[in-house]
């Protein structure tokens, strides 16, 4: 599934242009030092909204980032994500609820 197709499901808030990358998997983590170990194309689900997270997500070429529990990135974080071509999505519920939702939507 592509990020644009996921956004069309109407479940997410978008903080920037979500892009059209292919989602090859999902990874849930709140630690930058953990994220650098994942492969490219993952949808990254996290609570963290700081710039270092975008730097790590860019390094491992994530498909997009979903912030759970209604977390909102600041303007400078969005600007860095825009430059990196990383779509930033928001989800009001908790991470576990999102995990179930993604599975229901066909993201594996």
């Amino acid at each position, binding site marked *: 599934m592509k990020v644009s197709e996921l956004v069309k499901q109407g479940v997410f808030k978008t903080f920037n242009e979500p892009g059209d990358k292919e989602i090859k998997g999902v990874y849930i983590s709140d630690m930058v*030092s953990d994220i650098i170990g994942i*492969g490219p194309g993952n949808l990254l689900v996290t609570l963290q909204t700081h710039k*270092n997270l975008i730097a*790590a997500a*860019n*390094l491992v*070429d994530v498909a997009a980032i979903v912030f759970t529990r209604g977390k909102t990135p600041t303007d400078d974080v969005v600007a860095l994500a825009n*430059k*990196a*071509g990383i779509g930033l999505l928001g989800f009001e519920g908790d991470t576990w609820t999102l995990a179930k939702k993604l599975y229901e939507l066909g993201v594996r």
Partner: protein
Amino acid sequence: MKQKFMSAKKSESNCRHRWVMTNVRNGYLVVEGCFHCRQRTSFFSEEPVPPQDDYREGDHFWSYLGSSQASKFDLKCEECSEEVPLKNVMALMLCMRCDPECGVYKAGSAEKGSKTWVYVALCADTSHAKRRCVTKPGIKALNEYFNRGIQDRQKKIIVVSCDSRKSVDTCEGLVLADVGLTEIY
């Protein structure tokens, strides 16, 4: 016998490496500074709580400056089993292009296009007083590893060693480590 060894080496070097992370260790990146000479050093600690003791080492008086959760890894080729140890890589840092005079900035400027991102492999000897930094095979393997499978063909990751950085004091890079999560200790 010598000939056989050489041909084996040649076939190794011809391998189109498919690097994977191996020996992944979780711990702390601890930064220390010497108040005497103002040099900085860092090390990776796998202890449950990062050490914060001041100590003397020769002419240096090392004091704890801070720590962050980090992970270390080596790279191993799935094809030829070659392993590149990255013992001296303490963390990676995204260059924010703050100083056109900096060698890291120039490394990014040499590439055309805005989709080039430069990351710095930070070694333990932050001030490079011992004139040692991350090895060239390590930098080469990191470049190959982080450029695999990128969806956008125009995007490029460049990893450079930290000895190309102009100044550790004025650098505005984003270090890929989890600062502040365990400062309660």
